[in-house]
């Protein structure tokens, strides 16, 4: 075979007779008409792949095809007779003709004509189709739904016909599973079958899209793209709090948030002006990437890697391009240069999160998301706090205060008390104990205030707190005191007070030496006497020095400890002797003349700022009064007795507020550093090899960004806006294609994550473009798009394949039949929960931990990881929808992974769909499925079936939405009889089977019956028809 590229003898002869006749020709478009012909017949040897290229000729690139070599060019624009290509494809010489006979490829006459007309019209090559903005072509006449008009025109061309409509019972199950991820109930099936209106399907779709379950189902697909999970993913793989983002995605679908907003919020919600809570939560999309907190990691490397992940994910999700190659080198196939890649990377490179996640639940920047109703509660508390503060203020005004420093003669030394613990743990103190703190009020023994704490225990027991702030200062001569009441009937053997100034090694005890902490007869365990008298309040006092607390020490914690018995505790604090005139806690003058630093510690942050560097002689009269009131309220020891109860009230309110804040969900959000990082091309994708500087921009082969604002650089919001401005050639196509893929199993572009030149060409390009443009014209209305697809004949038709249709179109790309495929991991589990009646429909919240075999997490986890041990949930947690299952990236749940759910370590546009023995074992034997089978069996037995046959028909109806035929019913009947006979002989086995799982078997049912039906239900739930969308 002569592959050389030379003049063909045939050309001249042919040229003459074909030179005319181009005038009638309709315009030929390269992408639409020509590329497929060249691709199918020529590119294998004359395409991109240099290795297999023959005759050094490329026909996929214009400059190559037009290049003249030895005076001959493959294509001469406008001149067929001079074009070697034309000569070769028409050559009668087997050594010259193209494609060569051994390739078994040949051009049809029609294809030849197309090529001819294309050359005659100037042989215009076009940019890669996906980089040209989609245009709406005219919808072919015929079918009402444009989808069908396009598809059926193609089918007609292929000599095929669309399949007849699927049976309504098949269709109704299909629609329910596709829109809600759950099967219809028998009642719902009945209702649909009974509705003969032509609008029945449309009504059903509208109804289903209103359901919470719709949002949950749609969100699941998006979470694969967003790589959402509940752990960091690397190293310790600790828990991260990201679930408010997951719940937002559900909400966004339920609210039918338009796709442009959906995009903007996620890529740049933080940059919107006055972003709402939801917009900020949505920006967490950018924070869903895996991160590490591994010791020894290099900061620069992880800043780089996190930015790469965010960039590549955004590009894959919205542009359907795999930008990964351009990290290291210019993209070999797509026009994306490394520089352009890093220009996009620059949008994400200044993220404010730390390079290492710190293995924390709440790696900043985070947002606290209040739970429903908590805003109102917080406001109510605020009002109460204001009222209490008002009461404090009026009490302060009423204080008749005379400064002891102004008295003559100066007063003598006195004892002052500072109460620290009264009716509550002091501010910021974290209450802990063997069992929680318990407070009682009168008529139980109470010494002062309104409450006392109490503890009744066997052996050693205590309640305590740490972390109190402000701390309790120890001065020279300080005595620690507390009031105690020992129960007469059940006195303790020992009581102990412990003080924490950073350590707990300061202990005082009374009574027997039962508690052996610290060293006996030292500051860490000193005896202060016998147990006090029972049945009355006694004041205990401890000299601070005797338990090793030196002046200047500060207490943050205090423990009330006992051995046996019942003990009440009340009012505790410190007392000390002092000169009133010199004591800043008693004399206003003494306080005022202190160094500023000492004064400051008594001031609030706001006051401290205002009075910074301002000496008392510079204070105005108003300022002096203000500070004096502050001092009276906060510092003056003489007022504390009166003020403490009100202050305690305030502390309690503050604590309630803090509790609400603590129960507030945390979610990672996106934010940029105030000063952006300079980005560089990273040579060969190495984090430590910066090359050329780059600035934020988009690739040149795509439409440009609008002019840069004068006052600032481009930011992520510009990037997001650019994606959804309606002119971007990729965004709408990619989105529409993914949704198509969701329902049909394969996208119109099969490579739904790759719209680049390496990706597959669209199967139905005009349909794809029509849908994409229409989607934009519909203001990116997702539900409208879904409805358009689901009401098409293509979707509603039967999925039955015949040998002929399989042979003709094995992948079903022409859609002469509906797709049929196995349900996704989550749908399989949710379906059995739903059919069994176990499903708990509670929405949202932190991920739950349903059944999981032992040793999924444990063998892979670090000892110090907080997700090392799987602690299975209880009750409802076992039966929630799968979207709410806690997802640990390094060890996802087997029910997910066995059925191809991704680990969410990276964005996943399309799941594979395997068919394995492991899946069979799981569906047959997993406790979740067996328990569901038993619950389904209970439903079957409790339904009003008259006999086995009626029950079989009902059960079949429930799981498949159709009636069994006689053979099917008979097979079930026989196997039921087998199982029943077996369990009648072995009732122990029957009881064992029905006890599997946390839910209890219905005691009204006979174990033998229930066990036999459980296996029948198990069989039904394993039917190919049930694990598939039909």
């Amino acid at each position, binding site marked *: 075979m002569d592959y050389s590229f030379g003049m063909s003898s045939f050309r001249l002869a042919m040229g003459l007779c074909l030179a005319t006749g181009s005038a009638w020709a309709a315009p030929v478009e390269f992408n639409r008409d020509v590329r497929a012909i060249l691709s199918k017949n020529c590119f294998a040897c004359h395409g991109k792949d240099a290795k297999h290229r023959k005759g050094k000729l490329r026909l996929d690139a214009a400059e190559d095809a037009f290049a003249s070599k030895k005076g001959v060019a493959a294509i001469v624009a406008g001149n067929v007779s001079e074009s070697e290509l034309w000569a070769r494809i028409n050559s009668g010489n087997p050594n010259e003709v193209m494609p060569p006979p051994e390739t078994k490829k040949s051009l049809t006459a029609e294809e030849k004509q197309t090529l001819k007309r294309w050359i005659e019209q100037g042989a215009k090559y076009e940019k890669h189709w996906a980089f040209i903005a989609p245009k709406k072509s005219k919808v072919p006449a015929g079918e009402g739904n444009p989808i069908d008009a396009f598809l059926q025109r193609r089918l007609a061309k292929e000599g095929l016909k669309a399949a007849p409509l699927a049976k309504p019972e098949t269709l109704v199950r299909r629609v329910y599973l596709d829109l809600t991820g759950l099967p219809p109930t028998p009642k719902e099936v009945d209702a649909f079958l009974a509705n003969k209106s032509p609008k029945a399907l449309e009504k059903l779709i509208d109804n289903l899209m209103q359901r919470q379950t719709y949002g949950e189902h749609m969100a699941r697909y998006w979470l694969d793209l967003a790589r959402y999970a509940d752990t960091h993913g690397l190293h310790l793989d600790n828990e991260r709090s990201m679930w408010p983002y997951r719940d937002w995605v559900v909400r966004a679908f339920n609210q039918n948030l338009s796709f442009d907003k959906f995009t903007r919020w996620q890529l740049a919600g933080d940059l919107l002006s006055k972003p709402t809570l939801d917009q900020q939560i949505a920006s967490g999309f950018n924070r869903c990437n895996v991160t590490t907190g591994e010791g020894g990691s290099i900061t620069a490397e992880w800043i780089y890697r996190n930015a790469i992940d965010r960039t590549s994910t955004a590009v894959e999700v919205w542009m359907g391009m795999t930008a990964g190659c351009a990290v290291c080198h210019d993209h070999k196939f797509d026009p994306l240069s490394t520089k352009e890649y890093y220009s996009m990377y620059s949008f994400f490179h200044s993220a404010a999160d730390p390079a290492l996640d710190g293995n924390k639940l709440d790696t900043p920047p985070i947002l606290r998301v209040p739970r429903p109703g908590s805003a109102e509660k917080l406001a109510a508390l605020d009002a109460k706090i204001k009222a209490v503060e008002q009461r404090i203020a009026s009490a302060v005004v009423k204080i008749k205060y005379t400064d002891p420093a102004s008295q003559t003669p100066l007063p003598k030394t006195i004892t002052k008390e500072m109460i620290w613990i009264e009716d509550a743990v002091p501010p910021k103190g974290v209450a802990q104990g063997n069992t929680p703190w318990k407070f009682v009020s009168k008529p139980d023994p109470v010494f002062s205030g309104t409450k006392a704490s109490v503890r009744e225990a066997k052996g050693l027991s205590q309640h305590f707190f740490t972390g109190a702030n402000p701390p309790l200062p120890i001065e020279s001569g300080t005595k620690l005191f507390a009031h105690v009441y020992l129960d007469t009937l059940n006195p303790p053997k020992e009581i102990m007070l412990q003080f924490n100034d950073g350590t707990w090694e300061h202990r005082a005890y009374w009574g027997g030496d039962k508690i052996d902490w610290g060293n006996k007869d030292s500051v860490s365990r000193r005896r202060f006497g016998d147990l006090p008298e029972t049945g009355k309040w006694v004041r205990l006092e401890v000299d601070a020095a005797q338990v090793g607390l030196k002046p200047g020490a500060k207490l943050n914690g205090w423990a009330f400890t006992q051995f046996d018995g019942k003990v009440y505790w009340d009012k505790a604090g410190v007392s000390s002797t002092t000169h009133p005139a010199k004591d800043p806690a008693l004399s206003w003058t003494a306080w005022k003349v202190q160094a500023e630093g000492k004064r400051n510690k008594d001031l609030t942050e706001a006051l401290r700022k205002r009075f910074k560097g301002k000496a008392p002689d510079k204070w105005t009269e108003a300022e002096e009064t203000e500070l004096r009131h502050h001092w009276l309220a906060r510092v003056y020891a003489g007022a504390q007795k009166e003020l403490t109860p009100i202050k305690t009230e305030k502390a309690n309110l503050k604590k309630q507020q803090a509790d609400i804040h603590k129960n507030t969900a945390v979610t990672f959000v996106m934010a940029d550093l105030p000063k952006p990082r300079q980005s560089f091309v990273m040579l060969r994708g190495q984090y430590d090899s910066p090359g050329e500087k780059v600035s934020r921009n988009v690739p040149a082969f795509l439409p440009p960004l609008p002019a840069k604002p004068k006052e600032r650089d481009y930011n992520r919001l510009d990037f997001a806006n650019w994606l959804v401005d309606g002119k971007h050639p990729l965004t709408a196509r990619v989105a529409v294609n993914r949704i198509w893929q969701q329902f049909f199993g394969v996208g119109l572009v099969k490579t739904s994550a790759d719209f680049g030149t390496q990706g597959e060409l669209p199967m139905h390009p005009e349909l794809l473009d029509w849908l994409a443009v229409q989607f934009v014209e519909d203001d990116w209305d997702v539900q409208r798009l879904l409805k358009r697809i689901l009401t098409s004949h293509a979707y509603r038709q039967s999925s039955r394949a015949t040998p002929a249709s399989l042979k003709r179109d094995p992948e079903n790309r022409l859609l002469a039949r509906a797709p049929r495929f196995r349900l996704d991991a989550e749908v399989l589990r949710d379906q059995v929960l739903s059919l069994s009646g176990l499903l708990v429909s509670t929405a949202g919240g932190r991920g739950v931990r349903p059944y999981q*075999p032992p040793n999924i997490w444990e063998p892979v986890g670090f000892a110090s990881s907080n997700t090392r041990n799987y602690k299975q949930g209880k009750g409802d947690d076992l039966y929630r929808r799968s979207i709410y299952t806690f997802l640990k990236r390094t060890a996802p749940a087997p029910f997910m992974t066995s059925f191809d759910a991704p680990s969410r370590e990276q964005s996943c546009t*399309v799941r594979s*769909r395997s068919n394995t023995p492991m899946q069979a074992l799981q569906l047959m034997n997993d*406790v979740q499925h067996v328990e569901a089978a038993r619950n389904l069996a209970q439903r079957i037995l409790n339904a009003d079936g008259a006999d086995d046959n009626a029950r079989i028909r009902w059960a079949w109806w429930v799981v498949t939405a159709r009636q069994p035929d006689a053979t099917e019913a008979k097979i079930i009947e026989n*196997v039921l009889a087998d199982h029943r006979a077996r369990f009648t002989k072995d009732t122990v086995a029957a009881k064992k089977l029905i006890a599997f799982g946390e839910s209890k078997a219905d005691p009204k049912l006979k174990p033998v019956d229930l066990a036999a039906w459980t296996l029948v239900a198990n069989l039904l739930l394993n039917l190919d028809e049930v694990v598939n969308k039909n």
Partner: protein
Amino acid sequence: MNPAHEYHQLQNRRQFFQGAGLKMGGIALAQLLGQRTMATQATTTSEMHPALPGLPHFAPKAKNLIYLHMNGAPSQIDLFDYKPRLTEFFDKELPDSIRNGQRITTMTSGQKRFPVAPSKFAFERCGTSGIEMSELVPHMKGIADDITMIRSVHTDAINHDPACTFVMTGSEVPGKPSLGSWLSYGLGSESQNLPAFAVFTPTVKKPSQALFTRMWTSGFLPSKFDGVKLRSSGDPVLYVKNPPGVVPSDRRAMLNALGKLNQKTFERFGDPETQTRIAQYEMAFRMQTSVPELTDLGKESKATLEMYGPNAQKPGTFAHAALLTRRLIERGVRTVQILHRGWDQHGSLPADIKNQCMDVDQPTAALVKDLKQRGMLDDTLIVFGGEFGRTVYCQGKLTRENYGRDHHPRNFCMWMAGGGIQSGITHGATDDFSYNITRNPVHLNELNATILHCMGIDNSRFTFPFQGLDQRLTGVEEAHPVKAILA
């Protein structure tokens, strides 16, 4: 849709169209397309899991692979890379000319000194080959003449997570298929009753570094190429056990009915996947028998059990996993991987590494000997090693008796034995400090290329299109098998 999946679907269809066997009642399709093995009878698994066409690329030397991964990075300096001159350098600064400004982890980059810590363990030249090993691995000394010791392996990553991901998937970034998954995908399965790729993760005494399922899962390949983890407690294979109260005959009755009903579904929808599903349920049923049979050591001789050491019959130990590994290989399982944790000795290295070696030394040597005595070593390839090496300089306090070592990706030791690999040679060398490679470096990509070569695969032609790239186990750059160690 995933191209690999699709390929296999096509395969299924093709087999479906071309296969021989069964009468499918009155189905026009079956008559049209010929017959097919009755799903409820024994089917060959190659039907479900065939080799790719054209694979192996050439006659393989090894049919099976055993990969013993010492997770956490064992110290080459204390095990296999003998450096007698180090004693002179005890507690002396690592010369700058050696360290050469190389990157070190932030765990030791703050250290003021980098004092040299010589190994406290005695080395010996072993067998007739004279391969050097330390007293930590007395049993491995006995197999020195069966292995190739590579002292010059190097990797890119300096921390565990990326390095473990790299050693098993050829990429630091999660999401790529593991070596075993690649082999299952390319070469298919030969076992009728067991998965093609099995994994053990023995329990270890001390808390240690994590493992990642990505070290044995299939990344972008379909999940049926995942390694199946054989577990030490509960069911050895997930869900292999029937629910309480259910006996095999119950299952058989249920499966008979299920098969018939699914057959009817096939008649209704004509979906070839339904046929595959019928076959997979039958495979599952066979596994319910074959897996317990696999783990039943009753027929192992006393001598064999003794060879693997005192823990041979204790589930969850490395020894038990090693013995099961041989049984798996005997039963046609393509790849077995044991991932043994606990080798990350930043401190107290001498005591900890000794414990680790107690776990693995005897069973590892036994596995090689056992395979050899059964004539299985010729077509089984064994690989032993970690994800990187450890530094010659001490991390933390240094004494003659106690020291720690930080991560060192620049060189470390791995050994290989069996099908396709030479016996009794040492390949590559490092400087006096085991800090830089001086001869014949072997990058992990080249090591993987070598493994593939032994299995009859040309790594450059073994690709899978994903994210716009023809992905390879051995990365984007060319990687060549290490010719010098090939038999």
